[in-house]
């Protein structure tokens, strides 16, 4: 079977159930978030995973028979195309509270820079790769977006359409 870019296809439960080459499995997605961010598999218990567009994984709270041809189904969670999987800003705002590892808390000034799309030098306790950037909101650390942390630099990968200059 090949990939059809116009429809949502349910991810196979495991790689053994895979019918489309290169498509991630549900088990691999859950394992990725557990390994990289320490998220409990329970985070995605009532969520079904879907692919629309090569390597674009969507999370939908609910069940539906596959495939489904619609404009959108749940929230875009992850890109699995390419060597390094990349979680999305909207997906991490939604599910990122469950993360316990590779979360970088920034103060307001650094959050402003990050949210404008600027890179910044930063000493942080995080493994190289994609990290969840947290902002302090209402007295708690809240996931804001996704950055790429490499060699002491936090690169902002906030999508252009989401970047904003927030006043002090």
């Amino acid at each position, binding site marked *: 079977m090949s990939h059809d870019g116009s429809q949502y296809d349910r991810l196979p439960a495991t790689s053994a159930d895979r019918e489309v080459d290169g498509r991630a499995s549900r088990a691999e997605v859950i394992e990725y978030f557990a390994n990289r961010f320490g998220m409990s598999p329970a985070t995605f218990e009532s*969520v079904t995973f879907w692919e629309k567009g090569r390597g674009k994984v969507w999370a*939908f*709270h*609910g*069940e539906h028979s596959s495939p489904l041809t619609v*404009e959108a189904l*749940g929230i875009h969670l992850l890109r699995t195309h390419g060597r390094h999987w990349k979680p999305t800003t909207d997906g991490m*705002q939604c599910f990122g509270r469950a993360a316990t590892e590779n979360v970088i808390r920034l103060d307001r000034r650094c959050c402003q820079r990050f949210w404008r799309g600027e890179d910044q030098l930063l000493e942080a306790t995080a493994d190289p790769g994609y990290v969840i950037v947290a902002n302090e909101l209402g007295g708690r650390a809240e996931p804001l977006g996704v950055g790429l942390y490499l060699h002491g630099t936090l690169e902002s990968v906030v999508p252009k359409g*989401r970047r904003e200059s*927030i006043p002090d």
Partner: protein
Amino acid sequence: MEVWERYESLVDDRDAFRAAARRPLPTIVRVNPIKTTPARARAALESDGYAVTTRNWNEYCIEVDTDTPGRTWPYQHGWVHGQEEISQLPATLFSFSPGDVVVDLAAAPGGKATQIAGLLGTEGTVIANDVNLGRLTALRSNADRLGVSNAIVTNRDGRQFSLKRFDVDAVDHVLVDAPCSGEGTIRKGGPQSAADQQMIGGLVPVQEALLRRAIAMTRPGGTVVYSTCTFAPEENERVLDAVLADGGCSIVPIDPGLPGDPGITAWKEARYDPAVRRARRYYPHRHDTGGFFCAKLQVTE
């Protein structure tokens, strides 16, 4: 013709109506329960230096003292959404049960559909449809920012909306927030004069067809909320009167958080089914909101 001139016979205080229609709306946001609580959203805005006031009828509806609520951190985190007070009302008329499937037939730009998604919780599903692909882009970006993970977004003409693709034969509830002449949006820079007959004549068949389609796809016992942001009885009570004549549904009494005025049974030479009194009209001077109309129908067969 000015809006207040066309409807002066319907309102108790023409001068107050006119004065309110000329005032800009306050900045109102809706707290998004998918990501936070009203108390946390208020605290986050206040600690960033914004004064907030919660509306008595709805703890999710808060006024913020800024002209740019979009440039605040709570907005960027999807905790709040800019949505005027009266537009937060129709979704509250539903009584949802766990697992309900709800369709919003004309959903873009998504304020009400994302509100429904939050009210449903993750056990329920909202199908957010709109005929206009460009406006769907706005809906999708709002749904993404608000963390809506229980929505299916579709791009169909709502008048012919089909459930064929989905795992259900009928849905539990439908919102028809119909395209309309928009007289009620005068306070946010909408049309500044009353709708003319030509415009109304073009909209009414669409409004009726959307409402008929909504009723047809709802299971018996399910409900349909019809709303517009216009004062024109032709687009409101007359549309309800037409679908009531088809049979298969009734208008049910509602007790909305904002009382409004009852629907009217006579306009010029026209007479409408007395049940349309159960609908609600909202004039700007009554609750300091935009203009609005809504009714709740129950499907009986």
